[in-house]
């Protein structure tokens, strides 16, 4: 199982953190936020990193899941699991319906269309006050219970989100290393060549868009139950941009790149609060520098750099060994 070595190392790291740093704010509280962001980034990476498309409205699906859970549990008293399922189904249908017309577009036009979609959904969240509570949001969303086991502490939430996040990473790795994943990358490489090899490119793009939206919806529902509160700012345009930034920052077309991007972009603002008013300036400067010096992204750039260094070292050794043999 060589292809999963990196994954198992990551599982070990995620499991060790709360043991090594018990009751640490950065592990259990920030860790949960990082978990949400990793799922969102890894899911979106399938669509933009691998299939080469763009979506500037992905926070909308995240929000739909969250609001479906919030509304159905608080206003109608549904069980969180049923609400989550219904939210997922709704997002599946909506994403499928909009994917066909939207995915006929390419490049800037696709960016505009998804951007517009995201903004429309956000406006609905703000305006339909009777349902969503408008800009003030909704509170009193119940927590989650798994077969009688209440997810009622930071540590337990860490565990639940860690499992969901790790499964998402595993699913992404599985997809990429398969016929479906090659079809995605083929669409990115050359649509016309993919088609002549029998890949239905329209269907391929639509399928991964919907899949990515469904993952965002699921994690949105979990977010609502974990926060016990939702409001439109958690799902607005800036959040969509942030998810895209995570993917690009970590390195496109790399699952662990998306993971890395989500970790860095969630942690950085937390660390930079010590700079007070200058926080956002410094954050911006760091992001710009990364993109200038590591345009392939942090993770991809560093792993490639490391591999090149190793190769150079090895090449330097080879002639010496050849000399010794001769």
């Amino acid at each position, binding site marked *: 199982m060589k292809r999963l070595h990196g994954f198992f190392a990551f599982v070990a790291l995620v499991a060790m953190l709360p043991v090594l740093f018990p009751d640490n704010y950065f592990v259990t509280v920030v860790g949960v936020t990082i978990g949400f962001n990793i799922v969102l980034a890894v899911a979106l990476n399938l669509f933009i990193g691998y299939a080469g498309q763009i979506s500037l409205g992905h926070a909308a699906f995240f929000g739909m899941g969250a609001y479906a859970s919030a509304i159905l549990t608080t206003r109608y008293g549904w069980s969180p699991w049923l609400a989550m399922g219904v939210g997922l189904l709704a997002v599946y249908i909506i994403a499928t319906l909009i994917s066909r017309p939207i995915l006929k577009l390419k490049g800037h036009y696709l960016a505009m269309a998804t951007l517009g979609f995201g903004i429309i959904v956000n406006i609905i969240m703000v305006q339909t006050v009777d349902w969503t509570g408008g800009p003030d949001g909704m509170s009193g969303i119940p927590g989650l219970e798994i077969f009688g086991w209440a997810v009622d502490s930071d540590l337990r939430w860490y565990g639940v989100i860690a499992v969901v996040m790790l499964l998402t990473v595993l*699913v992404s790795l*599985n*997809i990429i*290393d*398969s*016929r*479906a*994943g*090659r*079809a995605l*990358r*083929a669409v*990115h*490489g*050359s649509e*016309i*060549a*993919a*088609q*002549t*090899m*029998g*890949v*239905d*490119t329209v269907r391929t793009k639509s*399928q*991964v868009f919907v*899949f990515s939206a469904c993952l965002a919806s699921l994690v949105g529902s979990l977010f609502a139950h974990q926060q016990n509160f939702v409001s439109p700012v958690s799902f607005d345009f800036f959040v969509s941009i942030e998810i895209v930034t995570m993917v690009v920052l970590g390195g496109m*077309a790399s699952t662990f790149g998306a993971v890395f991007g989500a970790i860095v972009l969630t942690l950085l603002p937390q660390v930079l609060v010590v700079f007070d008013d200058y926080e956002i300036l410094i954050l911006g400067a760091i992001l710009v520098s990364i993109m200038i010096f590591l345009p392939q992204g942090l993770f991809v750039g560093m792993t490639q750099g490391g591999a090149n260094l190793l190769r150079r070292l090895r090449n330097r050794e080879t002639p010496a060994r050849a000399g010794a043999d001769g």
Partner: protein
Amino acid sequence: MADVALLEVRGLEKSFGGVAAIADLSFAVTEGQIYAVIGPNGAGKTTLFNMLSGVYVPTDGAIEFDDGSLVGLAPHQIATRGISRTFQNLQVFFNMTVLENVMVGCHLRSSIGLYRAALRLPGVVHEERQVRDWALEALAFCGLGHLADRSADALPYGELKRVEIARALAAKPRLLLMDEPAAGLNDTETVELRELIRRIGESGITVLLVEHNMGLVMEISDTVLVLDYGSRLAEGTATEIQNDPKVIAAYLGGEVQYAVQ
């Protein structure tokens, strides 16, 4: 011998804004043939190819393949009929390894979809292994076996052209469309390509070839079709074509016709 036509084109027409790129073109390709289409630049060769592979929809006319019409089918639907192609300007997946490129060629011979792959349900591993073997076989056939794990963007042009051929062959097509396979190749590479096309033909795959390299066309083709201004100028064996005054005139200009006579 009563040869059966695998591909039959009748009265084909394609115009772009009133300008006919292909006009009233008819020809038939027999199963097992190496059939070449030649003609000066702008004669409509690439337009013809794009219609055969579904990139363009013909303005008029019929394209029959194995008794079914190809008109109006999307490129990926045409692929399911058993037609594969290579491109004049490279369409390699530069974001993949050589092996992965060729594995995409096996897309229609395998069936695992997104959700089954995501959960890695039983059957996925087995199919992956099978696809890998098919792809390696196609690479070996094209003399690229040693490059399987290289990234496609690290390969020189001549090898990339063969990667495209291997990818098309991995689909196990009945008809292979090759759009100027020798363009940009040096003499050694062209000789290798000639042998490769010959072996493809011997393996039972029908080849339809568009090519500018006359030496190559004349050596390997069973039948040659000459296009000029979008319609048929001549059709016949290589020797017949080489001695056809109309063809000589079209290629070398009117005065030469007198010189020949």
